[in-house]
């Protein structure tokens, strides 16, 4: 049985301009210890999927579908039971380490309160655990920095602290929402290496959210490509890179900077993300797709054999 199973997840937001269909009919499974990447450009609904799993969607959200964790349906779980799972079994790492830590509390307290809450640890025990995770994510001079505040750390160090916070109760699933996007390139690589190492040590399952296929390559077993809140393609990561089966994935791969003979080529996909205020009736990617045929504008492709495209792979450019 899979650890997390998402079935036909649909997330819509009530707004002044009508319903925004942010996530449509998304299904996937994550097994114990599995690493799944969720890839898509900005606005494709990645963060909302993570928030829905945590039960942290905004108040104007309407959710439908099933999110099962360890057999329990998270969407219908009462608040107190959901709170007991949060951080203890499912942890969330946010995109921006600059704003996701509380600027008015010491690092020690922010780490410690998690163990106090979920394991009934004493202050002293919590401090010990905080120190342990700080050392595990390799904060230099951790012992003396326990009493420091977030603003006293660099961005990379803060993201290490955020990761430490996610680890402290040894959760079974970590949702990492663009954990490196806000950091500069060298630091990005360090953070990904750290996540990889920790994942190996603890055997935690990871849902890695990113818009950067380059980040996914070395890290995730499987990759799911999202467009307009809809799954376009899902496959083992090597297959995605070697034999992408969907025009959108192919476009994304062309957008990854590649160094060939010393030349960096970067081709972004022309066009802009779809308008999501109406329920989709056609392939959402059709207006930007180089392979589109008239039928693409008239029907919604089913998700079959790992891809949602009406044209056979052989016919794609």
């Amino acid at each position, binding site marked *: 049985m899979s650890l997390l199973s998402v079935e036909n997840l649909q997330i819509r937001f009530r707004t002044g301009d009508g319903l925004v269909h942010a996530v449509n009919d998304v299904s996937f499974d994550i097994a114990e210890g599995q690493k799944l990447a969720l890839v898509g450009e900005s606005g494709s609904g990645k963060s909302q999927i993570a928030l829905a799993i*945590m039960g*942290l969607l905004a108040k104007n959200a309407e959710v439908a579908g099933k999110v099962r964790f360890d057999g329990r349906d998270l969407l219908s779980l009462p608040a*107190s039971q*959901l*709170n*007991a*799972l*949060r*951080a*203890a079994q499912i*942890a*969330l790492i*946010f995109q*921006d380490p600059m*704003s*996701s*830590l*509380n*600027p*008015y*509390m010491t690092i020690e307290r922010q780490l410690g*309160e*998690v163990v106090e*809450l*979920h394991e009934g640890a004493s202050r002293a025990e919590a401090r010990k655990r905080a120190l342990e995770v700080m050392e595990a994510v390799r904060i230099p001079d951790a012992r003396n920095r326990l009493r420091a*505040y977030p*603003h*006293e750390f660099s961005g990379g160090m803060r993201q290490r602290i*955020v990761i430490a*916070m996610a680890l402290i109760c040894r959760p079974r699933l970590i949702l990492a929402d663009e954990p490196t996007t806000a950091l500069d390139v060298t630091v990005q690589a360090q953070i990904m290496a750290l996540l990889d190492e920790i994942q190996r040590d603890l055997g935690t399952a990871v849902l890695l959210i990113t818009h950067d296929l380059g980040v996914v390559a070395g890290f995730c077993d499987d990759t799911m490509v999202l467009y307009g809140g809809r799954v376009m393609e899902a496959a083992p990561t090597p297959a995605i890179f070697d034999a992408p089966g969907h025009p959108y994935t192919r476009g994304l791969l062309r957008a990854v900077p590649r160094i060939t003979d010393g030349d960096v080529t970067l081709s972004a996909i022309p066009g802009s993300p779809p308008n999501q205020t109406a329920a989709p009736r056609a392939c959402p990617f059709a207006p930007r797709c180089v392979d589109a045929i008239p039928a693409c504008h008239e029907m919604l492709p089913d998700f079959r054999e790992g891809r949602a495209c009406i044209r056979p792979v052989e016919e794609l450019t």
Partner: protein
Amino acid sequence: MFNYTLRRLLTVIPTLLVLIVFSFYLMRLAPGGPFTSEKPLPPAVMQNVLERYGMDQPLYVQLWTYIKNIVFHFDFGPSFAQKDRTVNDVIAQGFPVTLTYGFWSAVFVLVLGIPLGIVAALRHNSIWDYTMTGLAIFSQIFPNFVLAPILVLLFTLSWGLLPGGGWNGGQWEYIVMPAIALGTSYMAGVARLTRGSMLEVLNAPFILTARAKGLPERVIIWRHALKPALLPTLTYMGPVFVYMITGSVFIDVFFSTGGIGQDFIDGAYSRDYSMLLGLAILYSLLTFALNLMLDLLYAWIDPKVRSSL
């Protein structure tokens, strides 16, 4: 922090000196003086009076004597208008009154305003929120000179519950209405400010982090949101606090409480130079002390401010 406090304390002295010199000359630029009246005094009598108050001396000598007396004897001189009373006497009598009702007024403002603001924020867009915001706007446009007569009309004239004025050594019945009349509009201001900043803080990413930790709502509010939500209120309360404990002219006149607000007015009308200067010094000392206190409080709450001290 200690060094910072010390540095701040040391800046009082030059600031006060500048204030004294400046006000000393400025007041004398205003037309009239403490002893001008409609029927001019006979020159001999006038000369006598001026001598008695040292006003026959050149201005800089008067200033020097004034400062010397403050430094060595903590003596702010005789009142020029109230016969046989010194400025020290007047302040010693009026200031405790003002301080008392000002203090209770501030307590009223904070103890009611902050919880109201928080409740409105937590029940955002509910009937509670709308009622509270409506009431706050309503009472914020109610200045104390409208509110005071209404209070007296109700509590004194209609229901006979509270005395309509006087002080009587500061018994609580005499404090209630001045404190409420003085504080209500600020209480409303604090409630609205607290509501707004609490709403903003609750939208901050670090609150989402706290939720993702599984903390119950109560802990999120108290441990994570309260401190930052109170920062704007603190800033707002600084000048309000000074205003409250230095007295409102209107409250003193309307309720005949006998605080220093009354003395300020009397002093201004009668060109009571020493009285006005003494009150100005008191005012600036209080402003200074309260600002220092608030800055330290700010530093206590905000580690970024603390590390910059």
